[in-house]
């Protein structure tokens, strides 16, 4: 019998991760685009680390940080109210960090592509930075926002190393689809592995297709 729970867990994780990333990355990308601090390259490098780091490294450090025996882990447990290691909450935290550049960088490039006069025009018209952000800047960078959402979502769906390190492989709690495939292949359950894989291929293709179709349409609207 097919166990659908890993797929449900994967989608739930991707959805929550993307939502958190969207809310958190808008101010971060805004700051990275407009700040003149000399620390900017440092911060950009930190945000971009997951692009080049083996997921196991990030997972390893997070596991240590989440462990109840470390001060950071104890503080995190107090903050979250539960243990993060080997729990769904831990998976979310790991995924958010791991997919951070996939949301922040498209947004940052969206901000940089807007002509500076757009924000300046709003300021001269008496609008605050916040009003300008939500009513002028963000509505005019929809393709970048969509790209960020889709890439973060797809990247979280495709995660393996980080979730395995942090979440382990607990059925019903932390066994997401990518891990379930690995597990199924290990146990020679090829039918099961095929099924999960096919669904993931479908999700990945549909996500990217949507990005290209919608962005193509948006671009056409702008240029026609």
């Amino acid at each position: 019998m097919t166990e659908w729970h890993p797929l449900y867990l994967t989608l739930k994780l991707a959805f929550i991760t993307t939502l958190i990333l969207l809310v958190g990355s808008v101010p971060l990308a805004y700051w990275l685009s407009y700040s003149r601090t000399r620390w900017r390259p440092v911060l950009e490098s930190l945000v971009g680390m997951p692009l080049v780091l083996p997921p196991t490294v990030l997972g390893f450090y997070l596991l240590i940080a989440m462990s109840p025996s470390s001060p950071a882990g104890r503080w995190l447990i107090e903050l979250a109210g539960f243990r993060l290691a080997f729990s769904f909450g831990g998976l979310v935290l790991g995924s958010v960090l791991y997919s951070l550049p996939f949301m922040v960088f498209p947004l940052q490039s969206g901000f940089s592509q807007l002509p500076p006069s757009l924000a300046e025009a709003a300021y001269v018209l008496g609008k605050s930075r916040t009003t300008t952000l939500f009513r002028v800047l963000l509505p005019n960078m929809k393709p970048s926002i969509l790209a960020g959402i889709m890439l973060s979502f797809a990247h979280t769906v495709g995660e393996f190393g980080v979730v395995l390190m942090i979440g382990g492989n607990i059925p019903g709690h932390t066994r997401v689809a990518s891990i379930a495939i690995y597990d199924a292949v290990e146990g020679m359950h090829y039918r099961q592995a095929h099924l999960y894989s096919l669904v993931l291929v479908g999700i990945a293709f549909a996500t990217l297709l949507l990005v290209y179709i919608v962005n193509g349409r948006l671009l056409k609207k702008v240029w026609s």
Partner: protein
Amino acid sequence: MITCSLEHRRFAEHGGVHLSVSLALPKGGFLALYGASGAGKTSLLRMLAGLLTPDAGRIVVNGETWYDKALGIDLPPQRRSVGFVFQDYALFPNMTVRQNLAFALPRGADDRILVELMELTDLRRWADRRPETLSGGQQQRVALARALVRQPDLLLLDEPLSALDPGMRFRLQDYLLDLQQRLGFTAVIVSHDVAEIMKLADRVAVLEAGKLTKLTGKAEFIADWLERDGQEVRLDAQVIGVRPEQTGQEITLLLGGVALRFRLPTDADGLIAGRRIGPEGWHATVGPESAGVAQRNDVPTDTPP
């Protein structure tokens, strides 16, 4: 009355320019900033708007201090009564013409001004269109109308007409003068189009490498310019008087509310209406009755692309 005295050190790629300008402008005046690119015209405009912070100096507009380094006053752009027409118009692509204007309206303000401004700039027909579906001239009018929604004391224009063809430019200059007469704002325009300056401005500030080298009335600027450059210029002006003289004719042009007299030799046929009126290369596209008659055919229809 607007008085400012500003210092700004700018470090550009090709060496820095030290901007140091003091000027006073009467309320309701129209000042043109003239000078080569890189002379600091746009920087000066941006400092007036609060988009660029000077290194020293002060700006006082109608008795209100907008900037004073010594007193530590630096009002943000939001709190300065300024309208700014950007060179690229900076219209919000996500909003219609009406929404662009409405966005500028302060909370709780009477929105009748929107309709009034759209009427004055002939935009009512396009009210529900997005900026990208409008022609350059229409977009420019939206930018102008939007800058006036808050009824600013000071309207700043950064070469707003330079990208438009001559016919459209002349019409927009008329709009601008008409609006200024009705609303009474003080205006500062950056321009290196001499014909535009002649038509719009009543005073001209000449900037060279960050320094104000001349602040003159329009007539002096034109006389000076003719003497120094004597290049061709296309004018859109009304001929209000023609008086024969021994070797030519004296014609009087009405340019931006100022009558200007030119003593001009006629050609072999004794014509000035042959579009050529001018001493040594001084051309004007003027007809006997009104301006730009010879230009009319070039004027594009006011429809979107």
